[in-house]
């Protein structure tokens, strides 16, 4: 079994990270009734004997003593991290895992990337090395950050290159929150595009998510919960947005509901690697199957169901509904419509009481309405994990490598160009040492090249699939 380390950077990254750790503890507590430190828990948590001073005290087996998250928390402002350390999760983190500053990055990618990057390079490296040393077999770094600000965006992508150099064999999965159109940070297009160049070059896999989609999902749930439809009630623990039943009861903050969705995404992504099932899917299988070309590594995700009704009898029709929902644009965590775009590859990660025949029946049913690229007509990767998420009897995470990410990137580029044409706010960036206009032009051309790749794929969309002439053999 392998371990993963979460690197949460910036305000957004840390808030999401906090929700993640809370829900991870809740999930493991539900599964692990005996309080024994097993391999599943060890994937994200260390077991530490707190009586031992210093860094020793890691316990590899036996009863759970004190669980510590395999995490590095980085923020150039103290507010969020301090709140975590004073909150109910304080025991899950070690002060040695934190890097903070006071002044913040001022929503400026260049400050995050160049100023704080060089300032904290050694410290960050040291913390990352330490966290890697605590792992028996480190497989994956999960980076959580937002694209629109300064720290998550700048410093977050700075350490991507560092991770690639220092730990070349460890996968880099990045969960990136993209700014919505109505984002209140004016320079978010600059920050995002400068960050995207780094994601293009140094990430193995990116899960782009935007706030608007998360918000829309919450509105949908609220509508459902408050409508009192058919007299049905929703199981509180099952809400993909709630922390109900989490080990630490926290005051639900405004972004908590949205952050919980992302936290659940990460839990479901790693469930088949942590828990047993009849068709396992390890994390290294994600990029193997979903990244046909190195630069096309952006995966659109959707989670279903969003809640469970308290009605225990779930007829098969409900199960099939879960599969249908996974492909609807309302359930995507990015504003994207995969059904009407071109699939390069698709992964279905199922949890709970679902068998191979259910999976196959739904693939057969949904296939005709989806368009796959000509060289990957049957491009499905599937997994079955026996353990469902808390509050559900089954769930589905769909990951799509699909040209439907293109509109997000194109919009971002448009917003960038609107600012850049007028050179608006540019001086804030250029006054940072090492920043030149070429950084901007290179970043936008990197994005343009990516968009062009998607365009070329889209152009093949309605073309008939032809079998290529095969090798002819002399007998």
């Amino acid at each position, binding site marked *: *079994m392998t371990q993963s380390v979460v690197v949460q950077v910036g305000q957004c990254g840390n808030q999401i990270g906090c929700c993640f750790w809370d829900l991870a503890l809740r999930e493991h507590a539900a599964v692990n009734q005996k309080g024994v430190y097993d391999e599943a828990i060890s994937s994200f948590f260390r077991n530490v004997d707190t009586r031992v001073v210093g860094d020793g005290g890691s316990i590899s087996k036996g009863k759970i003593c004190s669980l510590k998250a395999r995490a590095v928390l980085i923020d150039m402002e103290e507010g969020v991290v301090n709140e975590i350390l004073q909150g109910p999760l304080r025991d899950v983190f070690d002060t040695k895992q934190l890097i903070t500053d006071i002044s913040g990055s001022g929503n400026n990618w260049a400050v995050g990337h160049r100023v704080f990057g060089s300032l904290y390079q050694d410290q960050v490296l040291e913390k990352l090395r330490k966290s890697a040393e605590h792992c028996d077999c480190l497989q994956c770094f999960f980076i959580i950050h937002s694209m629109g600000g300064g720290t998550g965006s700048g410093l977050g992508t700075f350490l991507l290159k560092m991770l690639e150099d220092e730990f070349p064999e460890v996968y880099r999965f990045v969960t990136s929150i993209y700014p919505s159109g109505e984002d209140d940070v004016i320079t978010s297009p600059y920050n995002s595009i400068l960050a995207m160049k780094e994601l293009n070059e140094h990430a193995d896999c990116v899960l782009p998510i935007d706030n608007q989609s998360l918000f829309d999902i919450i509105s949908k749930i609220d509508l459902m919960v408050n409508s009192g439809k058919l007299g049905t009630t929703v199981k509180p623990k099952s809400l993909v947005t709630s922390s109900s039943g989490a080990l630490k009861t926290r005051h639900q903050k405004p972004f908590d509901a949205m952050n919980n969705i992302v936290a659940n995404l990460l839990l479901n992504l790693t469930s088949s690697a942590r828990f047993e099932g009849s068709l396992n899917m*390890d994390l290294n*299988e994600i990029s*193997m199957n979903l990244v046909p*070309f190195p630069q096309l590594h952006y995966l659109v995700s959707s989670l279903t169901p969003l809640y469970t009704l308290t009605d225990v009898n779930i007829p098969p029709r409900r199960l099939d509904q879960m599969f249908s929902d996974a492909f609807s644009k309302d359930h995507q965590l990015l504003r994207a419509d995969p059904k009407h775009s071109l699939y390069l590859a698709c992964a279905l990660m199922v949890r709970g009481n679902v068998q191979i*025949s259910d999976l196959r029946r739904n693939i057969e049913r949904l296939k005709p309405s989806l368009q796959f690229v000509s060289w990957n007509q049957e491009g*499905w990767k599937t997994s079955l994990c026996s353990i469902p998420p808390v509050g559900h009897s089954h769930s589905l995470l769909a990951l799509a490598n699909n040209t439907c990410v293109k509109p997000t990137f194109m919009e971002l580029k448009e917003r960038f160009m609107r600012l850049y044409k007028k050179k608006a706010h540019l001086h804030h960036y250029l006054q940072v040492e090492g920043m030149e206009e070429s950084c901007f032009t290179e970043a936008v051309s990197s994005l343009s090249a990516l968009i062009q790749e998607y365009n070329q794929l889209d152009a093949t969309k309605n073309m008939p699939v032809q079998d*290529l002439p*095969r090798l*002819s053999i002399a007998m």
Partner: protein
Amino acid sequence: MRMVVFRGNTPSLWLSMSIVTVQLGQCGNQIGFEVFDALLRDSQSSHGLCCKRENEAYQASCKERFFSEEENGVPIARAVLVDMEPKVINQTLSKAAQSGRWKYGQHACFCQKQGSGNNWAYGYSVHGPRHEESIMNLIRKEVEKCDSFSGFFIIMSMAGGTGSGIGAFVTQNLQDQYSNSLKMNQIIWPYGTGEVIVQNYNSILTLSHLYRSSDALLVHENDAVHKICAKLMNIKQISFSDINQVLAHQLGSVFQPTYSAESSFHYRRNPLGIDWHVRPPSSGLPSLGKKSLNKDLHFNTSIANLVILRGKDVQSADVEGFKDPALYTSWLEPVNAFNVWKTQRAFSKYEKSAVLVSNSQFLVKPLDMIVGKAWNMFASKAYIHQYTKFGIEEEDFLDSFTSLEQVVASYCNL
């Protein structure tokens, strides 16, 4: 159930009796468990429909082939379990132990922490060589435990990374180190509509490599077994457990003891026996100009068929239909291509059961499809970087395509 035999000569000396099973990857280990369970349950069954002495001979033969015995009498499977990550092996070991009737050997497993990532290249070029010594040692220990060793039964899937890549690597090693012993590979042919997106690449790499080192490939298609569960057994929600149990049942009915035509006094010693020589004619040989009994029916042309009958009335069963020349290629006499093994002892509580093992053109269509899909994907170079990263280059792919096109052509020409 069908078999592809592609070696012309068979080892001449098969006086040995025990089979060592190598279970690789999630699929191989999940199936391996079901096979041993089915074999033992059948051998211990009291519904053999034969006399006590017959039953005892059957049990003893089955036990000797697949199990060794520990002091306290619990049979230990003659198996080596290999996987690159621990979850499945742990489950498999505990399921066996929980059954109370048999178990796996304490030191029979080889496990690592991180899987092969569905990457044949990683399994074959990285994990294989890295763990070669440990794995081969485990296998050697198991072989040494056999008084009389027959050969290897290697269970693996084609679609993933470990079963396929390490399976191919290990089979190659077995060919080098145990060239006189039979190596039979149980291959799981993946569902046509993906379990793994790169399954076609993994499959062609596996098959082309196994062709060089395996003696026989026993093929089970997931789609076919799934259909059996759905249509013949009416299972509503089919799980991999169901599928694996059907598979194990079929394998059990091939491998359990039978009498050969030559000797009706004791069970045949060689469980993996393929008794026929199959040699394609050198060019210039005229076809034998046979008359077929049934001109209207069209069969997949066979080069070898084995029928195994178990239970009631086996001695009087009429198998003449299997000798119809229409079933066979023109350069084979049916009498040379057809064999029947029998035993009165019933299998798995079925009063009468029969199994057909066939080497025929049945595989042409599925193989052609996989090669075609892999070729289309290869033309776009999709996913190739994942393989070249670990030393499997485009030329290796081309070699695989070439050798499989030859297989397809050979079978088509029958």
